[in-house]
C-alpha cells in the first residue's frame, strides 16, 4: 500500500476530509470528531492519574506518572500498581464499554432513550447478580458470572419479544421498558427474600461501585473489548446507513438484519460485562453518546467518541466522589446517577424548547 496522505481535500460535507493515495485507497475522517476524541483521551488519562493519586494518603501526580513508567520508589509501587491501578483500569474499561454499548443501542433503536440502562439490560444483569448473592451466597466471581448471564438472557428476551420482521426502534424501546419493569420487580422480590448481610451486600452491588476492584476484573473485560471492538468497527459503516430506515439501508445494499443482530449482541455483551465488573453504574450508557454527539456535532452513531466519553465520565465521577466525600465513602454509581439525572432533565427541557418533544 502506498503512503497515505498524498492529498487531503475538503469534501462537500462540512469538516469531513478524505485522504487519498494514487493507488485508489481513500479514507474519510471527521476533523472535529478526531479533535474531540484526542481531547477526551487526554482528559481520561489526566483524570486517571489524579484518581490514582487520590486515596487514604495522596500521591502527587509526578510520582504517579514516574511509578507507572516503571521508576518510582518501591513503597509507592505497591500502592499504585497493585492497589489503585486496577481500579482505574476497570473504571476506564467499564466506562468505555457502557459508552459504546449505549451508542450502539441508541443508534439501533434510533432513540436517545433506547439505551441499555433504560431498556433493562442493567436491571437484568442485577437480577442475575442478586440471584447469586441472595440464593446461592456466591463468591465475587460467581456474582459477576450471574450478572453476565442475567444481562444476556434479558437481551435475548428483548430481541425475541421485539422481533417482528426486524426489530423496529419504537417497539424495541417499549418492549425494553416493559422488560426493565419486570426485572425491577424480580430484584425487589429477591431483596425481600435476603437476610441482612446478603441484603447489605446486594445493595452495595446495586449502586455500582469500583471499590476494591483488582486485576481479576480487568482481564475478562479487556479480552472481551479486544474481541468485540474490531467486530463493531467493521459494522460501523452499515450501522450509519441503518439510521436512514430499513428500506433505504436495504436499497443501499446493507445487510440490515445481520448488522442489527451482530451489533445488538455486541452491545448486550459489553453492557453485561461492564455491569458484572462494577455493578449497574447508572446513566453512563445514556449520557455518554449524547454528550459525545453534542461535542462532535456529527450525525451517525459516533461510536469512538462515545466510548472515550464513557471512560472519561466514569473516571472523573469516581475521582470527584473520592475528593468530595473521602476515599470509598460514596459509590461511583451514586455520582453518575446524580449527574445523569440532572443531564436528562436538562435534555428534556432543552429538547422541549426546541419543540422536539
Amino acid at each position, binding site marked *: 500500500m502506498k503512503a497515505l496522505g498524498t492529498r487531503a481535500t475538503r469534501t*462537500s460535507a*462540512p469538516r469531513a476530509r478524505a485522504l487519498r493515495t494514487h493507488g485508489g485507497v481513500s479514507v474519510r475522517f471527521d476533523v472535529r470528531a478526531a479533535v474531540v476524541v484526542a481531547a477526551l483521551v487526554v482528559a481520561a488519562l489526566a483524570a486517571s492519574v489524579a484518581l490514582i493519586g487520590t486515596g487514604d494518603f495522596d500521591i502527587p501526580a509526578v510520582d504517579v506518572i514516574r511509578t507507572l513508567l516503571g521508576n518510582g520508589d518501591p513503597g509507592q509501587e505497591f500502592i499504585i500498581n497493585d492497589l489503585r491501578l486496577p481500579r482505574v483500569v476497570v473504571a476506564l474499561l467499564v466506562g468505555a464499554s457502557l459508552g459504546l454499548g449505549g451508542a450502539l443501542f441508541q443508534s439501533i433503536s434510533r432513540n436517545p432513550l433506547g439505551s441499555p440502562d433504560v431498556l433493562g439490560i442493567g436491571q437484568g444483569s442485577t437480577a442475575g447478580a442478586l440471584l447469586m448473592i441472595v440464593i446461592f451466597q456466591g463468591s465475587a466471581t460467581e456474582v459477576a458470572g450471574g450478572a453476565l448471564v442475567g444481562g444476556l438472557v434479558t437481551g435475548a428476551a428483548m430481541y425475541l419479544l421485539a422481533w417482528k420482521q426486524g426489530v423496529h426502534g419504537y417497539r424495541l424501546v417499549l418492549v425494553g421498558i416493559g422488560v426493565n419493569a419486570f426485572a425491577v420487580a424480580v430484584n425487589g422480590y429477591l431483596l425481600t427474600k435476603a437476610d441482612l448481610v446478603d441484603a447489605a451486600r446486594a445493595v452495595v452491588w446495586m449502586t455500582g461501585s469500583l471499590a476494591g476492584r483488582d486485576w481479576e476484573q480487568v482481564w475478562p473485560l479487556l479480552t472481551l473489548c479486544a474481541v468485540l471492538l474490531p467486530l463493531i468497527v467493521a459494522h460501523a*459503516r452499515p450501522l450509519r446507513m441503518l439510521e436512514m*430506515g430499513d428500506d433505504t439501508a436495504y*436499497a443501499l445494499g446493507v445487510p440490515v438484519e445481520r448488522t442489527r443482530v451482530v451489533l445488538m449482541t455486541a452491545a448486550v455483551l459489553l453492557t453485561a460485562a461492564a455491569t458484572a465488573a462494577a455493578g449497574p453504574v447508572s446513566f453512563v450508557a445514556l449520557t455518554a453518546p449524547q454528550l459525545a454527539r453534542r461535542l462532535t456535532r456529527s450525525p451517525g452513531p459516533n461510536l469512538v467518541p462515545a466510548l472515550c466519553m464513557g471512560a472519561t465520565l466514569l473516571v472523573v465521577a469516581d475521582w470527584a466522589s473520592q475528593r468530595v466525600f473521602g476515599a470509598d465513602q460514596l459509590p461511583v454509581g451514586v455520582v453518575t446517577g446524580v449527574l445523569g439525572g440532572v443531564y436528562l432533565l436538562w435534555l428534556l427541557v432543552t429538547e422541549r424548547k426546541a419543540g422536539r418533544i
Partner: protein
Amino acid sequence: MNRLIADDVTLGYDQRVIAEKLSVEIPDNSFTVIVGPNACGKSTLLRALSRMLKPSAGRVLLDGRTIHSLPAKKVARTLGLLPQSSIAPDGITVGDLVARGRYPHQGLLRQWSGDDERIVRESMESTGVAELADRYVDELSGGQRQRVWIAMALAQQTPLLLLDEPTTFLDIQHQIDVLDLCADLHEEQGRTLVAVLHDLNHAARYATHLIALRDGKVLAEGPPLEIVTAELVREAFGIDCRVIDDPETGTPLVVPAARKARVAT
C-alpha cells in the same frame, strides 16, 4: 430477456396476500410508470423488485438470476430504490445525506474517492439542491427534502432506478423538473427508470411504458398512447372521464367528468 422481471410472484405481509401470481417485466431502457389506486400494491411491487420483500412464491430476476441469491452490495450497484418515505438521521446535512448514496461503491479501503465527490456534487446540482449542501435536512421544506432524497438515489449511479412517488410534496415546477430529470436520465444516459406516479397526465406524458395496477393485478400495460382509455381509467379508479389529446404533446390527457355529470348518472 429484460434485466428486471417479476415472474409469477405472490406478495404479501404476514398472512395477508397483496398480489397473487403477478408477472411484470420492466423493458430495458424504458421509462416505466406504474399507476393505480391507493393500496393496490404499487409500493409492494417496487419493494419486491428491489429485493426488500421476498415473494412467498415465484421469483424476481435481475439479469437472469434470482435477486435474493445475489450479494446485497452488488444488487445495490445495479438497482437503486427511492422508498416512499425515508428517515433522515438527526442533525445530518444535505451534503452528508447525499454522500451516503455512494455506500454500495465504497469499502473499508475506499471510503471517499474523487469519483464519489464528483458524483455527489453532480447529483446535487441536477436536483437543484447544491446550494443547500450545508443545511440540515430536518430544517428543509417537504419538497426540498424530497429532492435531497432523489439526489441520494442518483448518487448511487445505478443503471436501474426505481422511484416510489418521486413527485409527491413537490410544487408544479419541481414536479416537472424531476420528471424532466428522469426523462434525461433515461434518454441521455440510457438508464432504465421505474416510477410510481399518481398524476395520470404526467404518467402519460413521460412514460414510454405504462403499467396500470389494481388489487395486485395488472389491468393493462404498454405505451400510454395505446392503453390509456376512458374504460381503463374507470376500471382502475372507478371514475368517469374523457380522454383527449394533450394539446402540448399529443399524449392522452385524462379529464375527469364534471361533478354534475357524475352525480346525474
